């Protein structure tokens, strides 16, 4: 294959991957953030202590975490078809990607929020703050650097998942690598795809680390 043949395939692959990862990240954050918070708040000694809710959410998250993504991908085909109308293509892949990443992100949120010093929660309560104050003015702002790291990690996991999605007709760089690199023995194409993925992950990590550093700096002596 010549470069002029590969180039449009590669461009489309990158666009599809970015599309899937972007939307799946947005949905995962919107879904995982409340779940993670709920896990902390409903835990024993939490502000909204509720053993039943905590157990139920915990079990759901654990089920989501324990299924291998490729299995989830196939198991969700009927659901994906119901939501999007098809189970092939980048748009359809957003559904299993997000459902796969929500529990993962929720656990990361849980860890990040738990790290916030309980004294700060106590201080907000002593000022007369209720649960919304504690969540939006204490827990989330204080956990922000860790939460950004969590988003970075989730994006990178989603890049990996999206490549797997490519194997079952999801499109993106994964499809390109499987269809051309593997099935047609285009080794060069495979190598280029790998290089693009490495660059993509590196850029995501750099942006994430930069944001964390920017936030962390204000806490230190300048």
């Amino acid at each position: 294959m010549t470069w002029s043949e590969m180039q449009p395939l590669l461009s489309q692959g990158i666009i599809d991957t970015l599309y899937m990862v972007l939307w799946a990240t947005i949905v995962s954050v919107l879904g995982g953030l409340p779940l993670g918070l709920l896990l902390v708040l409903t835990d024993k000694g939490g502000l909204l202590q509720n053993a039943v809710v905590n157990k139920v959410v915990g079990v759901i998250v654990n089920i989501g975490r324990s299924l291998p993504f490729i299995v989830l991908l196939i198991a969700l085909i009927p659901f994906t078809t119901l939501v999007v109308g098809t189970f092939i293509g980048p748009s359809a892949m957003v559904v299993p990607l997000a459902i796969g990443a929500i529990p993962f992100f929720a656990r990361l949120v849980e860890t990040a929020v738990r790290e916030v010093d309980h004294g700060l929660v106590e201080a907000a309560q002593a000022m007369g703050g209720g649960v919304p104050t504690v969540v939006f003015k204490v827990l989330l702002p204080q956990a922000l650097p860790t939460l950004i790291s969590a988003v970075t990690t989730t994006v990178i996991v989603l890049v990996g998942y999206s490549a797997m999605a490519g194997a079952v007709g999801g499109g993106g760089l994964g499809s390109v690598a499987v269809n051309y690199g593997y099935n047609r023995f285009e080794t060069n194409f495979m190598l280029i795809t790998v290089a693009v993925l490495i660059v993509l992950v590196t850029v995501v990590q750099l942006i994430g680390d930069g944001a964390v550093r920017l936030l962390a700096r204000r806490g230190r002596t300048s």
Partner: protein
Amino acid sequence: MRPADTNRPALDNSDGNPVITTTGLTKVYDSRGREVTALDGVDLHVREGEVFGVIGQSGAGKSSLIRCVNLLERPTSGTVTVDGVDLTALAGRGQRASKELRAARSRIGMVFQHFNLLSSRTVQGNIELPLEILGVSGKERSRKALELLDLVGLADKAKSYPGQLSGGQKQRVGIARALAGDPKVLLSDEATSALDPETTRSILQLLRDLNQQLGLTVLLITHEMDVVKTICDSAALMKRGRVVETGTVAELLATPGSELASELFPVTGHATGPGRTVVDVTFQGEAASQPVISQLSRTYNIDISILGAAMDTVGGKQIGRMRIELPGPYEENVVPIGFLREQGLQVDAVEDADEPTDVPAQIPALVKENAK
């Protein structure tokens, strides 16, 4: 900010209204099936405008007590009344604080040992947080925050982050934040325990100034006797979840055998020989400035030895204890002792019997040390 109350009642006749009252306050924790009693029927009365110190060792229940006062911890039984409001009645059921309780809390300031400032906000942002909770508008919040920063002497640090401040400065921010809701009562949870002695003094001075300028009632818990000595008008000693002694510093000193008084003013010394009388003399107020010892010596023509003494200023008053020795047995010294009592001093005879028990107790300790 309320104007300074110049007509503040003198400290020694503080019959002021109780601002904080706890009755039969009990807190039992369930620790893996075992019940641990942190508070065991605590009755506390903190009068308006006073600085009240609760002292005790760690595990005595001080921390549970102060957390029960604003119901950060729910007492198992008993009531807490702050500024006429029965907080325990407002608590509501379950873990969540009712709206009424939250409103009451916003009128009670609290400062913490580890400051508990948000590292994600500037100094000004930290002070604005309680104002945000109260629903104060942005402009007013910033005005009030800067005014409070000025009050605690950190006007130039508004835009700094807590991470850029020293411990003492952080605690000043903590105090400014606690004052944002114009509280009548300030709770201080070991506010100086993480600070060095010099910073401790300056923070205590600030609390004292606020107490006097704003008429702020301060309830503080501490494990440092120096804190009580420096700023407290009244104190309570806690042991194993109970208040074992309580009263104004003057009352405590006037209580024979008071553990707090002897901790505040430790005097030691033993009779130089048999057949002598050893007494502890406690001075306070007027009597502290009278030359009573030389008067006693001249009036009765006796030689007096001073075995030990501790003098200090407590809550702005000269207070002291002195252990003196008079010649002859107690029976012969009834008249001079009566003279001292007439001068308004408190005189307690010291039983000499504890001397021999002290000495052998020390010897094994020395032997042990040498054996190492």
